[in-house]
């Protein structure tokens, strides 16, 4: 698994830099300010938990970090790349190479087996079919689901589905993992397993993780906890 090759000496250097980032939406004539002049630095190897009341802008911030959306103003630099200046297609390519997403509802393709789901991001690389298979197997074994490779999502438990989703997020060896309430739909025990897995990935693979959560116990697994309220960090 290429994830092992992460340069651990780089840990601690700056990976993400937000300089007075604002985001607003227009609702007719009204301007809804969702993020206000946000400044934030995230170091390589960090495990950051983002907390805050509903509607405080956590998902919006995560979307910006993942290049799913563009800030209204401010500078957003990740791994030296100026995301705020990228075109949509540049962002698309950047996402494929640099970010892994993990959602609350797993968002797997129901018509594909676990294996095929994990393979999806690799279609965007130059890897041969055989090489892809190897990477997929490694990712599945990392999340402890090798035996379920040919199961369909509806044949898996929620926790197992989330593991597949994590394998899919990991398989193309991104710099940063973005998780939006990854345990929001799971019971305590399963949630703890997923959180331990994320923690392991952070500690052993050196993955930088940003995780949105409402759950203080989930946040305890992180290295850093940030609180948001009304579009600001508090």
């Amino acid at each position, binding site marked *: 698994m290429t994830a092992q090759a992460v340069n651990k000496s780089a840990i601690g250097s700056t990976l993400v830099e937000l300089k007075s980032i604002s985001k607003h939406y227009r609702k007719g004539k009204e301007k809804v300010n969702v993020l206000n002049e946000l400044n934030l630095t995230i170091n390589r190897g960090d495990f950051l938990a983002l907390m805050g009341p509903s509607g405080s802008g956590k998902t919006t911030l995560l*979307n910006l970090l*993942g290049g*799913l*959306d563009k800030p209204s103003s401010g500078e957003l630099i990740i791994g030296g790349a100026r995301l705020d200046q990228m075109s*949509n*297609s540049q962002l*698309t*390519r950047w*996402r*494929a*190479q640099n970010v892994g*997403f993990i*959602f609350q*509802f797993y*968002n797997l*393709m*129901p*018509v*594909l087996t676990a294996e*095929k789901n994990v*393979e*999806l*991001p690799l*279609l*965007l690389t130059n890897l041969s*079919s055989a090489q892809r298979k190897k990477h997929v197997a490694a990712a599945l074994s990392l999340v402890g689901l090798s035996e379920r490779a040919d199961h369909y999502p509806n044949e898996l438990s929620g926790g197992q589905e989330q593991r597949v989703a994590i394998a*899919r997020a990991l398989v193309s060896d991104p710099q940063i993992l973005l998780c939006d309430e990854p345990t929001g739909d799971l019971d305590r025990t399963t949630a703890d397993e997923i959180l331990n897995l994320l923690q392991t990935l952070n500690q052993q693979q050196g993955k930088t993780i940003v995780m949105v959560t409402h759950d203080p116990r989930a946040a305890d697994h992180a290295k850093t906890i940030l609180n948001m309220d009304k579009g600001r960090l508090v």
Partner: protein
Amino acid sequence: MYYLYFIMKNLGRKKVRTILTCLSIVIAFLLFGLLRTLGSAFDQGAELAGEDRLVTINKITLIQPLPYNYLTKVKMLDTVAIATQSNWFGGYYQEPRNRFSQFAIEADDYFSIYEDLYSLPEDQMKAWKANRIGVVIGKALVDQYQWKIGDRIPLIGMFPQQGGNTTWEFEVSGIYEAKTKGAETNVMLMHYSYFDEARQYGKGTLGWMIIKVKDKNQSELVAKQVDALFANSAAETKTSSEKDFTKSFAKQFADIGFITSIILAAVFFTMLLVAGNTMTQSFRERIPELAVLKTLGFADATVMWLVLGEAIFLSVVGGLIGLLFAWLIVAGAADALAATLPGLMMTMDVLIQGLLFVILFGIVTGAIPAIQGLRLQIVTALRSRR
């Protein structure tokens, strides 16, 4: 490869719906294959007609006869090689469904004007001319009714004989054959002399004239000459190439091409709605999934192609099955229909047209969801997930 697999998997998600949609496409293209083949079978007769043959009909309509002496006048033109005439008998054998064409003609001139298309053995020609009620029939009729030389055939005609009887008795004197493939042999030919003498109404008239010009290049000129002869008379004429005539003759009964087009248009319109609806529905159900694909880094265009690919795939599968069935049915029915539509078969033209339509059908049904897929905004789509 993976993409094709993915597309097929997505189609398999709602199997019943996919199969029903596919079936509707099968039916659309089955009808397409059948009707287009039928339409082109009618065209085929038209294309065979030689350019050096002209046909003169009454300017008002084909049904109106012309005075017989018109033929004498036309024969005197020195641009004309042969001129003869023909009449519509319009009879059927025993039951109205046993309808085929019968023409009342003059044997020698008729066969010499159609020398390139038909042949009749000399002895049979001789016997025919000696038999007042004699007829010659084509091979297709022989195959269909198993008639042979010497058979007596009563036909119910459109025109009564003197005394009002509509049953005409004929006797088979000969069997003519086609010299070129595709020349129709489903016509019965009777003596004009007998027909004209026996009929109650319209004596001394002819149905239409057939003219063979001396010089192919002068066809247009000759047509004008002929029509000029009878201008300002009680029965003005219209002369055109035999090709145009055959077509308008077919249109007398039904504008086949037009009717098939209308039916096909209706069928395709309905099937487009059905398939388009399926595609739109299956797209809607998958909006979050498509948004996830974009999140993972799949380009907008890739997502568009996945959606469009599904529509095209379904259309290709359904369309090919439909065309295959059409081909099988046409091949199976060709013999049975040889009398009415000789040389019936699904042509390459129809097949290629069908294949183009298959692709087009897929593109049209998938176009709207494909464009929506192209434009799908990740953030909004994921937000609507909840």
